[in-house]
């Protein structure tokens, strides 16, 4: 137990000490991505808006939606959160292989690269979410108060999940090289079976599958808290508890896999 506590403390200390470095490298990546565009990171928001607009019109028509205003809000928030989760997971299999030279030749703990990727995904999320949310306010102004009052715990769950789950995928992908090819397929299946484009009720008798979909369990409480201002605190705290346990085991796993990581890359 003492060894585990020491391991956690060491990782936490290292993460805190180097926080400016990993945040900076993530920021630089975000900046570099849109270095050649005049609009810069606003492109992220625009691309999301474009997706929301296109998918909203098409699927709103397909599903014979009566209230397009509510549907756009529902779809907009869901899609931005899904894109963030999806991007975190789909980038994760190559996280260590992209940094393989550094892992083999520099004595920087692997947690550094995971934190850098996490902060990069966070920055990407905020850049796209802020613009989408700003435009959605024109459709329903109460979203702002709901966000400020009810969304804290669901967002906390999202941010913790965005850290640990991609690391698990990453560590498995480092061991098994064919996982990277399966990840996009699985993500596509999860997207199509998650009530993002459509309402949960549309699943009818298959509604139970959403209970097994843990990505949806992270996404849905955020959407509900922002749109309806309703939070199931019991469920949210339970998810937070599970998230923290998963985070603990992920850091432990990362620590033990660090021993073999340079040889797998």
């Amino acid at each position: 137990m003492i060894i585990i506590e020491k391991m956690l403390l060491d990782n936490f200390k290292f993460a805190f000490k180097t926080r400016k470095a990993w945040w900076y490298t993530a920021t630089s990546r975000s900046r570099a991505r849109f270095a050649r565009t005049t609009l810069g990171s606003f492109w992220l928001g625009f691309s999301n808006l474009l997706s929301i607009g296109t998918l909203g019109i098409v699927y709103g028509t397909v599903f014979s939606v009566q209230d397009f205003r509510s549907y756009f809000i529902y779809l907009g928030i869901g899609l931005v959160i899904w894109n963030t989760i999806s991007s975190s997971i789909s980038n994760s299999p190559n996280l260590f292989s992209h940094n393989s030279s550094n892992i083999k030749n520099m004595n920087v703990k692997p947690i550094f690269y995971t934190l850098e990727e996490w902060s990069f995904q966070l920055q990407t999320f905020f850049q796209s979410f802020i613009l989408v949310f700003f435009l959605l306010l024109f459709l329903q102004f109460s979203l702002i108060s709901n966000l400020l009052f009810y969304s804290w715990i669901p967002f906390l769950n999202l941010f913790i999940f965005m850290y640990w789950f991609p690391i698990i995928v990453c560590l498995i992908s480092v061991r098994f090289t064919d996982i990277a090819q399966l990840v996009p397929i699985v993500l596509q299946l999860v997207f199509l079976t998650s009530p993002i484009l459509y309402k949960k009720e549309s699943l009818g008798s298959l509604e139970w599958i959403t209970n097994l979909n843990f990505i949806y369990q992270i996404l849905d409480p955020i959407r509900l808290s922002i749109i309806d201002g309703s939070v199931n605190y019991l469920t949210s705290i339970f998810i937070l508890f599970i998230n923290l346990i998963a985070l603990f085991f992920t850091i432990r796993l990362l620590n033990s896999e660090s021993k073999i990581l340079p040889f797998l890359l």
Partner: protein
Amino acid sequence: MINNDSKKLQTLYIAYFGRPGDPSGINYWLSRQKELLSIREISDELSRQEEYMKFFAQDKSLEYKINKLYLNLFNRKVDFDGLNYWVEMVDNKDYTISDIVFELVFTKNKTYSIPLEQEQKDIQILNNKIHAAELFTKQISQSITLINLYKPDSISPWISGDSFIKVAQFFCNIDHEKSSIDMVKDLICSLSDSPINLNEPAIEINDISLSIPIYQSEQRSLTKRLANKAINITGGALDQSNNRTNIIALNNINLTIMKGERVGLIGHNGSGKSSFLRLISGIYLPTNGNIKVLVDVYPMLQKTFLTSSELSGLDACKAHYLLNNHSLSGFESFVDEIIEFSGLGSYISLPIKTYSEGMSARLIFSILTSSPHDCLAIDEGFGTGDADFCDRAEERMKQFMESAATLFLASHSEELLKQFCNRGVVFSHGSIAYDGPLDAALNYYHTHDYYRKNVIG
């Protein structure tokens, strides 16, 4: 009177030279003892050594030589009866100095009588000297830097030098009071002009081994693994463990490196030098054994940037600076110096992927050598870039390596090793084949034996 082998050897060193044995001397005689050389024969050989002959025996009277032995051992001149006895033994029984020493310290029953009180005093003083000698040699053995401090100025012709004289003077003054470890440490410190850390190991390695697993492609495919299991439902269980190959990169490594030591790592390609550097840098973790790294080891193994090549040179500088300094205070002067030294000018703002190989090498070299570090682990492969840059880089590298308190340098270049290192560790197939002063390590490396075993095969 004396039982333990190393203590017996220390007694002989004290008797003949008035000083404790140096670690290599003690080890040499201990190994000779294993070859069945008796302590009497060792005493005989020591009495013929140039150090004794030149400074204590040559052109000296028998009385002088006996008095010197007594002074070295008991801090007093020989008593009247004793002198008469030894002279008689030399005249009538062809006793040599070696016989006198042997009888004086290793014979239980005294052949001539001295007052009991005097005998007890003698025993106490001699025991105190042996105790101090053991402490001294043990302390010196911990580091090659210290071993190098305690050596003669010249072996042929023999010139003892200041350190032997200082230590002998210290031993002259040992009497009824037992020397403490602190007194011995003070003595060792006084041998060096610059301050040395006696109690501060930088790295302690105990029984370390490192296995590098080599995974077959089948083991790294989840689908193939599952498919194999599914296909194999009807057959017996297959043992897949043999598919895994391990390379024993390091084996049974025991080493203590004190702060301030400069260690050259020598060995054939694949002998374990780079793995050792990665191990002490914390990049590799040992498979077995313990390693205590008590300094911040800064590895310089390959030229890699912390940031992606999509980012600019300036971003790379900033990320590196933040990682090491945790804030941006002082960054401007840091980056100005890098721009000036690397000669990149305004190119520093362009993405690294647009740089030529030489420009990248200049930049990473400038970044990594821009600030001093306590302990460096440098691989020879860490070059300096293009030819124009080479001269300036060499000079800077020299200053950089000199500024480090503790240095590990893996290299095939004798010139480079001799310039920066004082201790040599020779690796052979993942084990330490030799550890000692650099010159001796290089000699070992160049012996036909090493070549026959490791290079020619």
